[in-house]
């Protein structure tokens, strides 16, 4: 295996998200950023492939504002060899169509590769569209929801894809993209040496011009979709709360379920 490219996204840490009780809107200020949780499994898998084959280069790529560099440094500290930040004002307001196009341009710029990996979906947008989108721009197969890799080598892989009621065992030949699940592996903790190396690493910033991206396919104008409005859903409030564990308490719950036609 010569090269694995891992795509990650920097997202707000959902665990730190707070809802303003008066306006019922999300408070985004001061919320720390993290690597999208599913992408941690993508990074880990890239590093495991390198450890297995030895001669593999793991390149980690993200698109975002300059501060997304923090996410890339974290990926480097875990063992990725090289990081690239795709950042340009022209990329702002890209939807999944434009984003997957920009990421596919980066792949072409990087050069040859054996496999592309990314997480199942990002925890902010939850679309799961960018991974398959990249594969579509590159005209390669994509396999989503990977929970297990039975075998992987240059030009061949045998993997398991999770379905709602089971899983598929899939063989793929040639280059491909996979989106991965938590079940695949357990991400490592960065080593001290990794952290030091990540601190010193130079991370190039690639612009639209450098990527030779078509202006008609990036940013706001290149995005087919438009957000008409964003709003907060009605707040979910706690309802009835009773203390106890006797028959009467359970009867109360039973009656609640029947009254609301839940049984």
């Amino acid at each position, binding site marked *: 295996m010569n090269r694995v490219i891992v795509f990650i996204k920097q997202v707000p840490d959902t665990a730190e998200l707070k809802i303003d009780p008066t306006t019922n809107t999300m408070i985004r200020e001061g919320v720390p950023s993290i690597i999208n949780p599913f992408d941690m499994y993508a990074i880990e898998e890239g590093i495991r492939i390198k450890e297995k084959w030895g001669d593999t280069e793991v390149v980690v790529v993200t698109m975002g504002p300059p501060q997304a560099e923090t996410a890339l440094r974290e990926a480097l500290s875990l063992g990725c060899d090289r990081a690239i930040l795709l950042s340009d004002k022209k990329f702002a307001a890209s939807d999944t169509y434009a984003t997957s196009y920009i990421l596919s341009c980066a792949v072409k710029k990087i050069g040859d590769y054996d496999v592309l990996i990314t997480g199942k979906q990002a925890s902010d947008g939850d679309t799961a569209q960018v991974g398959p989108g990249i594969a579509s*721009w590159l005209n390669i197969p994509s396999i989503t929801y990977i929970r297990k890799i039975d075998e992987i080598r240059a030009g061949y892989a045998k993997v398991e894809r999770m379905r709602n009621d089971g899983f598929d065992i899939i063989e793929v030949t040639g280059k491909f993209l996979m989106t991965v699940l938590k079940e695949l592996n357990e991400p490592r903790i960065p080593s001290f040496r990794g952290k030091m190396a990540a601190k010193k690493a130079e991370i190039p910033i690639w612009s639209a011009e450098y990527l030779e991206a078509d202006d008609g396919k990036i940013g706001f104008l290149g995005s087919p979709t438009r957000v008409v409005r964003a709003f907060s859903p009605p707040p979910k409030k706690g309802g009835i709360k009773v203390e106890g564990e006797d028959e009467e308490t359970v*009867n109360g719950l039973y009656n609640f379920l029947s009254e609301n036609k839940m049984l």
Partner: protein
Amino acid sequence: MRDKIIVVGESTGQNVHHVTYELSSKAAELAKKIDAKVIVLLPGYTINRIPIEKLFKTGADKVVVIDNENLKFLNDIHFVRNIEAFLKEESPKIVLTGATPQGRSIIPKLAIKLGAGLTADCTELDIEDGTNLLLQTRPAFGGNLMATIKTPNRLPQMATVRPKVFKINETYTKEVNIEYRNYIDGNSDIKIIEAVKSMEELINLADADIIVSGGRGLGKKENFSLIYELADKLGAAVGASRPTVDAEWISYAHQVGQTGTTVSPKIYFAIGISGAIQHQVGMKSSDYIIAINKDINAPIFNIADYGIVGDLFEVVPKLIKKL
């Protein structure tokens, strides 16, 4: 010629997926507003005729079947190739499909190939007055934010829709109009060697009306049997919190939450689950949330419609007995 709304359906051969009926019902409602016709596409292999005919009761004007052995399993390459050829032939205004593993794997690739706008996991669809554009509403940030999205200048307008969001309306009496088509297919670099059906029952979280989930409060792996027993009584699927999956009390396929599955059943039982925000984002859009936990300060009570502060080992067996 009338505009077209196309529903890309799903079939296992024996059955047509319920989300296909849900979407043909919704498509018929939208079609009235823009004077369009509803075509349901069914890619698959050896698809039964009876479930196809039911589509004419749920709003379809026409059903196009692509029956091809290559479509027996979810092979992304064959599906994309056949559906792309079909959509190019039909030039629809709107394309809807279920936000299922099939829809979420195939449609993003088609949207790129067609240069179309795509909105994922919609929970509401409507037509905008004046422009006749499709308004697509979807949750983001695990349901903490809703966004309404449209595609003004490109066609088709594509959306994946969460199963069980729209009701099946079986009151239509459209004439049966089924057409079989074939497109030039080719080789595939992907081969599905085996489609394994889970031996575990009660696992299909996405399709469940009721989910009974267990958490760390169960204390040990063996106590999940209590969750299974309650789920069995209710005809529910079994869910789990992340810590129980990490402790290997139950398999990952059951995990609800940020790094597991997002669910929105009619009733969600959180038993012995404290309700960390990562769990909440995966289930808070459930219609009713029932929580049983002995910790009065557990965050799950902030979003539960009915909470019992008490020992689950006392409460759950009593509830099972009553059912």
